[in-house]
């Protein structure tokens, strides 16, 4: 998928909303096993004897990050429940079936449904583990917000709603999410979480480095494996260090510049990611995040990523960003119209 024009304005709030509906992955420390994986299968090795993680991996899924409240304590679907959930969710998510006048999904009534279904490549299946959320810990499947974190999440939700009603907060580009500015991809994280489209990552592996190239937005995270210490320079996607523990690649990331594309986090976020090949076509991805300002405790998610042929094409976001000037100019036009209306009313 290479939707240069979708950079925009409105898909980004959508993408974030989609993420916030996604259930999270399984517990960080547990040995990942996809359902039905043969216990005897061992991952192929690189010439250096490391597990071979190379390839292009797809993390599309309609499993929500957080478990829908209606599912209560239910951690796993049965096959039949999963099929039901998929049928309902695929109908619910279908943008072409939402009447803007009535609203639906995260679209308020009377707003706009800015992208129709053809733009989406979110997948139509739940995760292979049949978990009901991508969050695997806490067992509630919900993000353990602090009051401060909760406040920020609510503010974000309100801004999304206002945006969809045609009134984004847009005094300056700095008011807009990082994805709309093409600074960070909506799903690239770190940690990586599925969003509206471009849910693909290519893993490159040499003796000294692992590189993660996320399609959104052509971002390469190059991770040294030589045990070097962390530096002190904050960066948008933080600074990552990796090592192998048996069959598992463990990547630790800190030194974030501020929040990442990962909604709600602060610069203090500490991230551990784990990558394990569990069968020929699965790269099991787990993450644990900790940020005491935002969350009351560390929490973890898991996504079994699936091998695809690829390739990943260039997603030139900034170069085609017609949306951001449009959003800002639209806000100025609204203000002008409002001032004009006030002037007339005063007369």
């Amino acid at each position, binding site marked *: 998928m*290479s939707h240069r024009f979708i950079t925009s304005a409105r898909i980004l709030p959508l993408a974030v909303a989609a993420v916030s509906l996604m259930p999270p992955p399984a517990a960080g420390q547990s040995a990942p096993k996809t359902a039905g994986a043969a216990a005897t299968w061992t991952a192929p090795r*690189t*010439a*250096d004897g490391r597990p071979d993680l*190379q390839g292009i991996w797809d993390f599309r899924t309609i499993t929500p990050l957080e478990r829908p409240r209606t599912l209560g304590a239910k951690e796993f679907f049965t096959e039949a429940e999963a099929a039901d959930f998929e049928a309902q969710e695929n109908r619910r998510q279908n943008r072409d079936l939402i009447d803007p006048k009535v609203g639906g999904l995260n679209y308020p009534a009377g707003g706009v449904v800015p992208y129709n279904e053809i733009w989406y490549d979110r997948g139509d299946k739940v995760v292979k583990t049949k978990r009901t959320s991508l969050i695997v810990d806490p067992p509630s499947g919900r993000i353990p917000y602090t009051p401060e974190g909760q406040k920020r999440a609510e503010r974000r939700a309100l801004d999304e709603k206002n945006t969809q009603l045609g009134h984004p907060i*847009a*005094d*300056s*580009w700095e008011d807009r999410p990082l994805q709309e*500015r*093409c*600074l960070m991809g909506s799903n690239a994280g770190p940690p990586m979480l599925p969003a509206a489209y471009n849910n693909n990552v*290519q893993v*490159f*592996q*040499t*003796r*000294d*480095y692992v*590189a993660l*190239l996320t399609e959104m*937005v*052509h*971002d*390469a995270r*190059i991770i*040294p494996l030589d045990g*070097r210490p962390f*530096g002190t*320079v904050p*960066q*948008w*996607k933080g600074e990552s260090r990796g090592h192998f523990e048996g069959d598992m690649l463990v990547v630790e990331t800190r030194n974030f510049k501020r929040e990442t594309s990962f909604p709600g986090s602060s610069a203090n976020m500490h991230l551990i990611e784990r990558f394990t090949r569990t069968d020929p076509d699965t790269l099991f991805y787990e993450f644990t995040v900790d940020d005491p300002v935002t969350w009351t405790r560390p929490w973890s998610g898991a996504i079994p990523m699936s091998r695809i042929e*690829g*390739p*990943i*094409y*260039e997603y*030139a976001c*900034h*170069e085609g960003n017609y949306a*951001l*000037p449009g959003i*800002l*100019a639209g*806000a*100025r036009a609204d*203000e002008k119209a409002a001032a004009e209306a006030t002037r007339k009313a005063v007369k």
Partner: protein
Amino acid sequence: MRIWLGLAIAFQLGVLATASEAQVSQARRTADGKADLNGIWQALNTANWDLQDHAARSGGVVSLGALGAVPAGLGVVEGNEIPYLPAAAARRKENFEKRLTADPEIKCYLPGVPRATYLPYPFQIVQESKYILMAYEYAGATRTIYMDQAPPSPSDSWMGHSVGRFERDTLVVDVTSLNDQTWLDRSGNFHSDALHVVERYTPLSADALTYEATIEDPKVFSRPWKISMPLYRRLERNAQLMEFKCVEFVEELMYGQFRKPPSK
């Protein structure tokens, strides 16, 4: 018969392999026996200011003074001549005159090939056998070089479509499907969407490569021409590619006109 033929081929291949190994024994090797180009590399020249021979000159932004000036440099173009067609020569002159507003580097746009190589920022080669990732510090640009099976290019793009192979120890990359939005330097040298670049990366020593690029574009140039330069390994002990996400440095320039004015 078949057996003899097989043996003969095996023998010939063996001889060839031995000969090429002898010639390249000094280069670092990957596990699959190829020249090992992994590392963080950087050009140390003034090609990004001007590909051709040039004296030092003012940068044109009065407030930047010496800081914005263009350093003098010996060109990287073989024969120092860029063979523009007449109409293209006029366009290049025009580009030069408006370079302080028209150079796509100003807007933090993806740099294209070959310019990505000699921008004044490092880039990293991550070399595995089927793919080579080239990650550039400038704008977080990346491209993937297909070493095994290359898919067809779906459309033109900023960084193009790169298909690579080794000729002995030289990585040869054939780059096509480049769009016409990038420039070759800050002096207005340009190309069209008919650009075809053949790059050659050859180990010169453990810590240097020779980079050569043949540039062909029948809409702009009367013949193919070539640039070459050394690339140097960044030898700092924890050398790493840093982020230069320059989008945030160009937003005021690009969108400032749409910012909410301060209330009166």
